[in-house]
């Protein structure tokens, strides 16, 4: 009785420490018991459970979604970079496409690409690879398209060389290169000059974009007053994994 009275009138800070000391010494069994009770009293409805097979299927689905999310985040990053780089373009849009099969060393120089079905890809749109024009869409259907490379013999793109304000036509030779003819020798052209797709005469490009560079510039044998210019691509088209289609607003 005396002990009880002493404890009752003792400062609560002191008696509180005694209580805490007991709980600290027996922390493990107290915790164990508490967890057991919590588990037993928590309602676990069968509706929250799924069979193991279903669980595995869902796990795989989650992995697929995560991979798709990473891919889309990567695509978004690329598109954002394009928009930032080409912010001078008004009304231009870009569609990312994956290269399925390249045909660079064959008789016909073309790529087969796969793009999102929602993208309005049509014939004659310009295609970029590594920030340079590599060709135009030759046909497109249901998410797949052919890209006629500018090195293809059937390709003809209006270009200009450097700062020269002279209309020229770049025509492919089927040998991973293209030629520009009928350029007067009055104009200074040298090896290494950058060749731009001018976008003249087409609604699919409204700003100059790099196509290639001058690899060879000699006077034409039959017509010495004109240059015989050979242009090669600035990027390794054969190693491209993805390309970008330029979609101008006028087509939407």
């Amino acid at each position, binding site marked *: 009785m005396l002990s009880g009275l002493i404890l009752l009138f003792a400062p609560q800070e002191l008696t509180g420490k005694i209580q805490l000391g007991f709980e600290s010494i027996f922390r493990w069994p107290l915790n164990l018991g508490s967890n057991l*009770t919590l588990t037993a009293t928590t309602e676990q409805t069968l509706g929250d459970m799924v069979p193991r097979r279903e669980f595995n299927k869902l796990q795989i689905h989650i992995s697929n979604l995560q991979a798709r999310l990473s891919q889309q985040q990567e695509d978004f990053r690329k598109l954002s970079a394009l928009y930032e780089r080409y912010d001078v373009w008004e009304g231009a849009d870009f569609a990312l496409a994956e290269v399925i099969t390249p045909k660079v060393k064959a008789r016909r120089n073309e790529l087969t690409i796969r793009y999102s079905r929602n993208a309005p890809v049509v014939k004659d749109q310009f295609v970029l690879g590594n920030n340079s024009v590599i060709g135009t869409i030759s046909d497109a259907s249901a998410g797949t398209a052919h890209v006629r490379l500018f090195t293809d013999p059937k390709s003809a793109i209006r270009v200009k060389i450097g700062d020269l304000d002279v209309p020229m036509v770049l025509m492919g030779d089927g040998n991973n290169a293209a030629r520009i003819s009928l350029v007067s020798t009055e104009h200074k052209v040298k090896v290494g000059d950058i060749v731009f797709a001018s976008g003249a005469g087409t609604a699919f490009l409204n700003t100059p974009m790099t196509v290639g560079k001058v690899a060879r510039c000699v006077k034409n044998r039959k017509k010495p007053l004109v240059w015989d210019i050979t242009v090669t691509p600035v990027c390794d088209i054969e190693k491209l994994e993805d390309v970008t289609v330029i979609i101008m607003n006028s087509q939407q």
Partner: protein
Amino acid sequence: MRWFRFAVLILAGTILQKGVFERLHTRPDLLLILLVFFAVYCSTSDAIITSFAIGFAADLIGSPMPMGAHMIGFGVFGTLLAYLNRVIAIKRMPHQALAIFAVGLLAGATACLLARESASTGLYSGLLRTAVCSAIVGPFLMAPVAWCMHIKMNRSSRR
């Protein structure tokens, strides 16, 4: 009286009370049940000692209530019950249930008064729930406790 077994039993009861039953809304008071057991089946002197010891154990796990309140409450009413057992044998289960219920209410109320707990409906309903639950469960735990303590329950002699 086997005091070591008593100590182990009280420790186990304290840990169970605090660890397992604490999360339940309506729970029996194991220490109260042990108090009544020892008051009924031990000698009066042993019953007094055990009552205060059990009260001390109840104080250890009684936070935020200050220590000392349960010790006095359990000690006083445990002692009274031990003396009452000398007059009226409390061997049958209904009597034991009634004893648990009464001691639970009285000891609990005393502890709250000594601890100056603010009187509220929640406080009294909690005391009542615990007393009722202990009274229902308690008589069934007497036999296992007697087995642990090696005390024969069929002794009719009064001490």
